């Protein structure tokens, strides 16, 4: 029993899987159909990048407008039509840019779109206009205000600009960096509006690594064949986690890079040793086809077990 305990799962297999995948935490969103869909929570770095892009767009547009006004009117900003117009556009831009795009593009500003982020409702409903409005009304307090305090401290408090600057820094640290400190990467606006920023999903359907082992449907090209056979005992060693790592190894090996080949060779050797493969009897085997066959056989075995209600998460899990 103690030997088992020593070998006991160091950390949850599922957690390891999740940690590997996009190295991002995930969040379940329940659709109205009752099927949860998983999203990957956006990294704070991506969030910052998206914001920086939007911020630059805003700065460039306003600066362009201001220079245009100066050029057209001399230096008289106030009291001219163009000056008034510029100030109006300025106000609209800085207050409604994010709101406008998140409403029009369903939760994405130009910056978010470039980086591949998206705002969604945390509870699975459609992203409502209220939520977009609220999450962007707070932006001022979270970023623009403390930045103002930092950059033009003399205007905020002419007698003690240093203190104003310090206040600005503290303010920024607490509010602007809030997403770094919580698991779901929520900023104040997200908390109040009930939204969350996720990676815009994009995945490609790849070749099934076990397709070769299955009899083709009538009308399909004939598949390759299994060349190796594995005993049930050999297949019962590994679990789902190892299966999916193997899937990754096979896909990387398909890319044709030297690292991919080396990884396949190493994994092949390790598996052969672990399952007690008779190397002398089989002679030297091609790592790719051996692993593909092992993958197919292991998957067939694990999926069969899963259908019968036994889900073997990884090699450490024991039959209950």
């Amino acid at each position, binding site marked *: 029993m103690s030997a088992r305990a020593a070998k006991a799962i160091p950390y949850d297999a599922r957690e390891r899987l999740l940690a590997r*995948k996009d190295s991002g935490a995930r969040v379940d969103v329940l*659709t109205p159909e009752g*099927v949860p869909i998983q999203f990957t929570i956006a990294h704070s770095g991506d969030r910052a990048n998206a914001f920086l892009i939007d911020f630059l767009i805003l700065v460039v547009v306003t600066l362009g407008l201001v220079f245009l006004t100066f050029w057209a009117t001399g230096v008289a900003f106030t009291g*001219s039509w163009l000056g008034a117009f510029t100030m109006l556009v300025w106000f609209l831009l800085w207050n409604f840019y994010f709101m406008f795009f998140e409403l029009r593009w369903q939760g994405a500003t130009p910056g978010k779109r470039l980086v591949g982020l998206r705002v969604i409702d945390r509870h699975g409903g459609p992203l409502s*206009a*209220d939520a977009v409005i609220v999450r962007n009304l707070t932006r001022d307090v979270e970023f623009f*205000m403390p930045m103002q305090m930092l950059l033009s401290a003399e205007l905020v408090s002419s007698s003690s600009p240093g203190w104003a600057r310090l206040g600005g820094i503290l303010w920024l640290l607490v509010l602007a960096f809030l997403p770094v400190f919580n698991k779901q990467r929520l900023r104040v606006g997200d908390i*109040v509006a009930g939204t969350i920023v996720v990676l815009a999903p994009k995945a490609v359907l790849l070749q099934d690594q076990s397709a070769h082992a299955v009899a083709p449907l009538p009308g399909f090209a004939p598949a390759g064949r299994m060349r190796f056979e594995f005993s049930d005992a050999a297949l019962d060693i590994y679990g789902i986690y190892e299966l999916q790592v193997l*899937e990754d190894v096979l896909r990387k090996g398909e890319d044709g890079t030297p690292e991919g080949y080396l990884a396949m060779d190493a994994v092949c050797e390790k598996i052969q040793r672990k399952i007690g493969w008779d190397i002398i009897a089989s002679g030297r085997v091609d790592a790719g086809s051996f692993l593909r066959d092992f993958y197919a056989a292991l998957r067939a075995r694990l*999926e069969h077990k899963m259908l019968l209600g036994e889900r073997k998460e990884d090699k450490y899990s024991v039959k209950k």
Partner: protein
Amino acid sequence: MPLAALKLKSVEFRREREASWAELEQLVGRVEKRGVRALAAAELARLPVLYRATLSSLSVARAISLDRNVIDYLESLTARAYFCVYGVKRHLRDAAADFFLRRFPAAVRGLRYHLAMAALVLLLGALVGFFLVQQDENRFYSFVSDDYANGRGPTASTEELKEPLYHQESVAETLSAFATFLFTHNAKIGILAFALGFIAGVPALILLFTNGLILGAFAALYAQRGLSLDFWAWILPHGITELSAVVFCGAAGLAIGQSLLFPGERTRLGNLQKRGRVAGQLVLGAVLMFFVAGLIEGIFRQSVMSIPVRYSVAAATLCAWIAYFAWTARLARRERA
């Protein structure tokens, strides 16, 4: 000797469903690029059907398949399709109509107690400011910053005080007055009162009170020179709208603060979300009211000098707002019935 083929239900499952996934992916790709209008009517009708089929594929795949790529793919495809199906884009016109006819008035009605309290605090500030300055004119400087006073103060002559009330401006000047109004006045501060609401609503109270103080201080200053009638004729045409907007913003901040301090039966976070959205509507409506106030101040008030006309415009704005909220309330009652 060839070995027997394996039986892998997940592979057969994928072979059977793959075509419909590809069809959905193609439709979703087009919608993402060019919007729902990129689809023909027949394709549009297929979209939800394919979405539900793929969603069921996802459930099945989770139960029977261990091919991670397939599950990832379905996960991402259903998510993208989910955005297309449920993120239906409304026309901006419909959204605006919905906001003005239902959501904004509903937010005002929903937060009426907060509104009453905010108005009370503003009034209190005004009274305190008025009486304090009336007793000692020099206190004016404690309440009103030099920038804001702009030469108006106890040391100014009556003529100097009277001048801005009847100042004539060119059209371009009034426009920039409008623009600066938006910046320097309360639209910004209003948003702030809301956004800072999570500090227990204290900033909202301070904002309301100081706004009241300034108003009261000015009123006392003009009252002592016997210019009360002129002063209120100058303030009220835009002031009714502007002060209401200030009160709205303050109420929104109070509501947020309350949801954090006294969460009641819900959790603080849940409460904050529920209240936050309503309060956000109120603030957006208030910002639009600041716009209206700015228009009245910038364009109308500087061109009409007659006191009776100014007062009747003030009364008209008051009646218009009352009529608007009463009418939308009746609309809501009728819709509920």
